[in-house]
């Protein structure tokens, strides 16, 4: 896996495009990204003056890099396929929600539901995230440089979440097969989530993802949280509710 911090080669203007949200609407920008971009030679896009707008670069389906210069609102890079998006600022709720492939890198902090229901690709957040990070994740990999909020990993089905800071309350409640690695403290574990011993495979996986994110931590400092699988089949003794 290549690191995200690659040197960008400037090959000339025809490969680059700058979109200004102060002059163009989100709708027009998304339309450009969906309809015009795939037919053009452009591979590097800059979006300037985002000022917290919602739905920037949703539904991407083209290999390219996008740099968002500032803070974005909700659903930045929602349902992303193939694109590599970097936000030089913070994001609101649902960054990279339902991402299928590609990557999203947030240099600041992310609000609630980061990476929600993501199926693939990699989401990196340098700072903290709000509540419900990785909620219902379905295969996405999430790497958080800071701490994550309460109820993170709720109903996480597949994928891996790496947290270099602390985790809040109810981590991994109703976990399925996703695995969460936490370096710092865990305020409390959710229903059916448990701490498990780490294996060599875990260390390898963590190292690869940390390298991708550009974070420098020792994989051996992380704890593994996974499902105890007691809620897998509905029975009276598990004292549960649907």
């Amino acid at each position: 896996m290549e690191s995200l911090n690659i040197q960008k080669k400037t090959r000339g203007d025809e490969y680059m495009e700058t979109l200004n949200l102060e002059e163009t609407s989100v709708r027009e920008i998304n339309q450009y990204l969906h309809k015009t971009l795939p037919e053009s030679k452009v591979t590097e896009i800059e979006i300037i003056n985002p000022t917290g707008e919602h739905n920037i670069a949703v539904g991407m389906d083209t290999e390219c890099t996008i740099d968002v210069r500032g803070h974005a609102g909700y659903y930045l890079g929602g349902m992303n396929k193939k694109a590599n998006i970097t936000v030089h600022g913070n994001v609101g709720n649902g960054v990279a929600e339902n991402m299928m492939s590609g990557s999203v890198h947030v240099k600041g902090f992310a609000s609630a539901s980061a990476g929600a229901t993501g199926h693939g690709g990699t989401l990196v957040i340098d700072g903290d995230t709000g509540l419900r990070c990785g909620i219902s994740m379905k295969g996405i990999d999430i790497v958080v440089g800071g701490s994550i909020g309460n109820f993170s990993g709720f109903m996480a089905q597949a994928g891996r979440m790496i947290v270099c800071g602390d985790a809040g309350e109810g981590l991994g409640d109703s976990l399925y097969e996703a695995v969460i690695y936490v370096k710092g403290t865990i305020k409390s574990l959710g229903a059916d989530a448990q701490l498990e011993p780490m294996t060599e495979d875990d260390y390898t996986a963590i190292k690869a993802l940390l390298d991708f994110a550009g974070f420098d931590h020792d994989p051996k400092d992380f704890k593994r949280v996974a499902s105890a699988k007691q809620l897998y089949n509905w029975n009276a003794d598990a004292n549960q509710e649907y």
Partner: protein
Amino acid sequence: MCGIVGLLVKNEMLRPQIGKLMLPMLIGMTERGPDSAGLAIFGSSSKDNERKISLYTFDPDFLWKKLSDDFLAHLGSDVHLQQVANHAVMTTHLDVNLVKIWLKEHYPTVHILSVGQLMEVYKDIGTPAQVAERYGFEQMSGTHLIAHTRMATESAVTPAGAHPFTAGEDWGLVHNGSFSNPNSIRRMLAHKGINCVTDNDTEAACRFLEWRMREGDDLEAALHAGFEELDGFFTLLMGTKDQLALVRDPFACKPAVVAEHDDYVAIASEYRSLAHLPDVKNANIYEPKPEELYIWKV
């Protein structure tokens, strides 16, 4: 559901422009709240023996002059009335309860929105831009304010249903979210002699906090009691004489963003609203954590 806005200006030089700074924040919250809007601003102070009472009437042709004449005739006291559209701020040294009784008897179509030395409240139906224009929000000055844009969930879209709601003196509240047991709270409070004027769930919560503070709780203790008894989702922003206070419920489903700058502290439901504040890129921007009380003093 709704948008909330809060602004506390630390830099004295900027206080005359608090309205100007706030206006784009409020307009930015129009999509979250297109039905109605409101504001509680803490500005110039009345004398210590006087109080400012914010008044509102449905009647567009209301004769405020007649009210002040009758006030003098019945209560034997001059009253100062600063009118703007269908609102007026009454300044008087008379006992507020006396004034309330008099108004109820003689002018039942005039409603009291707030009482305090510093606080004035303006709220009405209309888009945030319309409401702001109607009451001259842009020209206002003061130290701090709370404001709100409303998308009514269960209660009616009426001016009375707009936020902020106030309690006691120099105390106002705006809310984003939905309380799930407001009816029981209303009934409980009615037994204690506290009645709600609207069917708005926020008012029920406001009266609850008012009751707790009446019983001697400070704000923090009142909010803790609130966590126990009030159910549902809420981000609450409160303004008092000299502070702004913010709290989110444990599930924290309703958003909030804070920008702390040397010159000001600004709060909004979405970052979009803060994006155009002066020098905001050098502000410390963060999301408040659930169940923690954040307080900023003037």
